């Protein structure tokens, strides 16, 4: 089962948590605020490792307004299906549908870069209702979660 999968350097149990991003740890979502006021978001490294290789994604349409916690896309992997919930209320302005059409394993290869899922125009920013963390606090909370779940991260290399 490990063919084509590689560990991720010296990250915590193979899981990379970038301290410059914001995280909703419980929902396993990362957020990068862009200079134009939009939020780019995607699945974290532990989340892509837990769900396995992507097989299909159904994105919410651009222009769709979402409450916090609502699904911005549904994802089907080889043996699992589930939502990609936005931690922040807002309107979908762009999805990475074209990227995933070209390579369905983007999130399994590069979850924080090419594997982004949606861009949102937040209703309000910063969102004081969202439980978002960054920097050393994010890394510490993720390390505790990785221990709790017993997860080891793997990336697709091929």
């Amino acid at each position: 089962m490990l063919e084509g999968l590689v560990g991720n350097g010296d990250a915590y149990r193979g899981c990379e948590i970038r301290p410059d991003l914001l995280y909703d740890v419980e929902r396993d979502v990362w957020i990068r605020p862009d200079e134009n006021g939009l939020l780019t978001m995607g699945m974290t490294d532990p989340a892509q490792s837990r769900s396995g290789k992507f097989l299909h994604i159904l994105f919410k349409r651009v222009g769709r307004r979402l409450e916090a916690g609502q699904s911005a896309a549904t994802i089907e992997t080889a043996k699992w299906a589930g939502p990609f919930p936005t931690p922040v209320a807002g309107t979908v302005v762009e999805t990475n549908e074209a990227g995933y059409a070209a390579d369905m394993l983007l999130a399994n290869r590069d979850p924080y870069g090419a594997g982004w899922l949606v861009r949102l125009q937040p209703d309000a920013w910063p969102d004081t209702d969202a439980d978002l963390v960054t920097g050393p606090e994010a890394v510490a909370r993720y390390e505790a979660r990785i221990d709790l779940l017993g997860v080891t991260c793997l990336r697709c290399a091929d």
Partner: protein
Amino acid sequence: MEPIRLLDLGSVSPIRSQSIFHAVGHAFGPDSPDTILLVSPNAPYVSIGRHQDVDREVDLEYCRSLGLPVFRREVGGGAVYLDGNQLFTQWIFRAEHLPATVEARFVVYVETLVRAYRQLGIAAEYRPINDVHVAGRKIGGTGAARMGRAEVVVGSLMFDFDTETMARVLKVPSEKFRDKVRQSLNDYMTTMRRELGQPPPRADVVAAYLASCAEVLDRTIEPGLPRPDELALAEQLDVQLASQEWLYEAGGMHRAGVKIHEDVRVGEGAHKAPGGLIRCVARVRSDILDDVGFSGDFSARPATMPEELEVRLRGVALAEPALLAAVKDYYDTVHPEIPGVTPADWVAAILRATTTDVPA
């Protein structure tokens, strides 16, 4: 750890057999107990995977003629015919109470099914990633999904299975393909009835399953009742999951071919040779061409062609050199007259049929 709540709901309507586990999943709160739900539908229906397009996967006209409802589920995978001869075993658990990865979750979940079958006298085995096999035949199917805060794993214990109707409800490219699916379901699936002569009483199956769950999970299981909020949500989902909007949601996922089990799949493909179109229906078992059938508008002599070629190809490794050698051997010994069709054309048709992706 707190006990697992058992909801043994017996026999319920087709839609409720789907809505109840979706409801328990979506109603899962910080204090909700891990739940094992046992339920069977009191009438047959067809269930399609989360992202399948119903028009492309299911023969809706046939389903309507039989009065079979078709429902989309939030669990992935392919279309399946379900009826009262299956006991659905649905787990709705806090994510932290199950192994972190989907694959590891199935190891635990499938082990409970395997042990239950063994207690009932059936030599079941775990076939990774998420199958239960008995001597190479699959018994039941499993799947997993996230619903709100809950991780859900579903599967079934198979008293019996109607392979005829299963093959009939699928939308397939040709009747020849359907025949191959039907035959493959019969060859590569099994049930408690088939293994034991007759299915055991439901109470015995439930007792064996719950004993297995308690042992594998090392947890206490206590009978309980659905909460009012779960029942209220199930009533809402009875409507939503049966709605046309939800059924016709364009999921966009379509894969040619039918996966019978982890090692066996049926596919179809066509290749245009100078002498005509060659259609091929092929069954692959563990990288061996298990069965193959050709049709098309090519003209061929002798009259034993293409049946004789089909027989020669059975059991050949699914690799271009081996296939080409087998077809060339046939040409060299029989010297068939098939204008504009070379050995490489037959191989191309086989490869088209066998390289199509199939649903998980």
